[in-house]
C-alpha cells in the first residue's frame, strides 16, 4: 500500500492505494497516530485507490478514528470503492465511518 500525505484547509489528507490488509494496516494506523500526535487531528483518508480492504484495514481505520476523536478531531473516509463500501455496510461501521463521495466533500463538510 502507498500512502501520500497532503494538506487542505487545515485537514490532513492521506491518499492510499493498493491493498489495505493485515500487512499494510499497521503502517496506516501508525501514520494516522503520527499525524494526530503532530497536532493534526482532522484527517481525511482517501480510499479511492484501494482495491481491497479486509478486517485488519477496518481495524486500522477504527483505531485511527478513536485516536483522532480523543484529540478532539475526526477521521473521515473519502471515495471508497465498491468492495470497501460492502465491508463497511456489512459491519455497520458506515454508521461511524460514513463514506464521503470525494475528498473535496469530506474537507468542505467539516
Amino acid at each position, binding site marked *: 500500500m502507498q500512502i501520500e500525505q497532503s494538506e487542505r484547509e487545515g485537514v490532513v489528507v492521506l491518499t492510499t492505494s493498493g491493498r489495505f490488509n*493485515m500487512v499494510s494496516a499497521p503502517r496506516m*494506523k501508525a501514520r494516522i497516530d503520527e499525524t494526530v500526535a503532530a497536532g493534526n487531528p482532522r484527517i481525511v483518508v482517501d480510499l479511492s485507490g484501494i482495491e481491497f480492504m479486509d*478486517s*485488519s484495514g*477496518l*481495524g*486500522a481505520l*477504527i*483505531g485511527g478514528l*478513536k485516536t483522532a476523536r480523543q484529540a478532539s478531531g475526526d477521521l473521515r473516509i473519502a471515495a471508497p470503492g465498491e468492495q470497501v463500501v*460492502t465491508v463497511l455496510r*456489512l*459491519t*455497520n*461501521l458506515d*454508521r*461511524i465511518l460514513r463514506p464521503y463521495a470525494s475528498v473535496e466533500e469530506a474537507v468542505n463538510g467539516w
Partner: protein
Amino acid sequence: MAAMPGGSASEEERVAAVRDLHLLDSPPEERFDRVVRLAQHIFDVPYVAVNLIDEDRQFTKAAAGDRFGPPSTSKPRAESLCSIAIQGDRTLEIPDLRTDPAWAGHPVTQEGSVGYYAGAPLRAPGGHRIGALCLVDVAPRRELSVGEQAMLRDLAGWVERELATGAELEQGAELQRRLLPRGIPDLPGWEMAGQCEQAGAVGGDFYDWQVLRNTGQVQVVLADVMGKGLQAALLAAGIRAIFRGTSPHNTLSASVRRVADDMDEDLTEIGSFVTFFAVRFDPADGTTEYVDAGHGLAFLVGPDRAVRLSGDSLPLGAAPGDPWEPRPERISPGEMLVILSDGFLDVHGDPDRVLEVVRAAAATDNDATGIASRLVRSALGRLTTDDVTIVVVRRLAG
C-alpha cells in the same frame, strides 16, 4: 554427559518437546532459511543447518549449502554430531575432526567428509535442547573467536525465537479449539450443528451455545475477533467467558453490552474489534431475538423465505455505548438459521451470493450437520486465509 539416547525420563520429555514443535518432516520455511543463509555468509562456511533431534534420527529443518544433507531430510541419530551437541548447554566445537582422538571412532569421522564442526544447541520454549544450529566445513578450521561464539549464540537465539513463535501459534490453535462447545443441547424438534475450521494461522473465530435455565431459551453466538495468533485467541476466550457467564442473568442486549464494556479497553489497546452475532430462541414456539453486532452473515432459510438477518449495531470495540438492541424474529417449523464467519465472504464475494450457497446446501442435505459440513467444504481451500466457522440451527417441520 547427560541425556544419552535410550529412554530416560528427561529424554522422553525432550523428544516430546521436539514433536510438540510440529516441525519434524515439515517443508522448508523462509523464517529458518534466512538464518542459515546469514550464518553461512557471516562464518564463510560451505554448510549451515538447523537440525532437530528426534528419538532416533536427525531431521534437517533448514540448510544452506548442499553438501551434508538437504533440508527436509533425516538421517540416523548415530550419524549426527548435533545429537551430541545437544548434550550440553555450550556450543560444541571440533576444529579438526579427523585428527582429534576424542572423535576417532565416530561414524562421521570414519565417513571422512567433515573437517570442522560447530553446533550451538537450540532450546524449545520449555527449555529442552531439541536440536542445534551447526556450521560444517570439509576442511579443518581455526576455533571461533569469542566474538564469533557470541554471534553464533545470537543466531541460535534467533532460531529459538522462531521455534517459540511457531509453538505460540500452535497453542493458539489449541486454545481456539477448546473454546468450542463439546456437546449439543438435546432439544426435541430441533437440530444444531457447528464447525470451525482453522485456515493457516490461528484466527479469532468461535461459536458457542447454551441453554438459559431460567427462561428456557437457547442462546447461540458466533464471533470473529479481528486479528490472528495467540492474542486473537485469548481475546476470543475472554469474550466467550464473559458472555457465557453473564447471559443466564441478563437480557440479550444487556449481555452484549456487558461484553462490549468489559472488552473495550483490551480491544482498543491492540486495535482490534469483534463482529458478533448472538441469538436467543424459545424451543417451544420458535420465538427468536437477535443482535447483529456488525457481523452481517446470518440467514434464515426455509420453504417460504430466505432472508438475511441484519441489524444496525456496531461491532464490539468500535465505539462504546452502542445500545445493541435486539430484533425480533421467529424460526418457523421447517426453517433454519445459518450463521457464518466472514471466511465465507472471502470465498463467495458478497452476502447475496453466500445466501444462494446456503439455500443450495439447505436444499441438498436435510440435516443440520450435513448442511454445515457441505458449506464448510464449499469454502475450505478456496481463496481464504481466514477461519471458516458456521452454526446451523434447524427447526424440524411439523
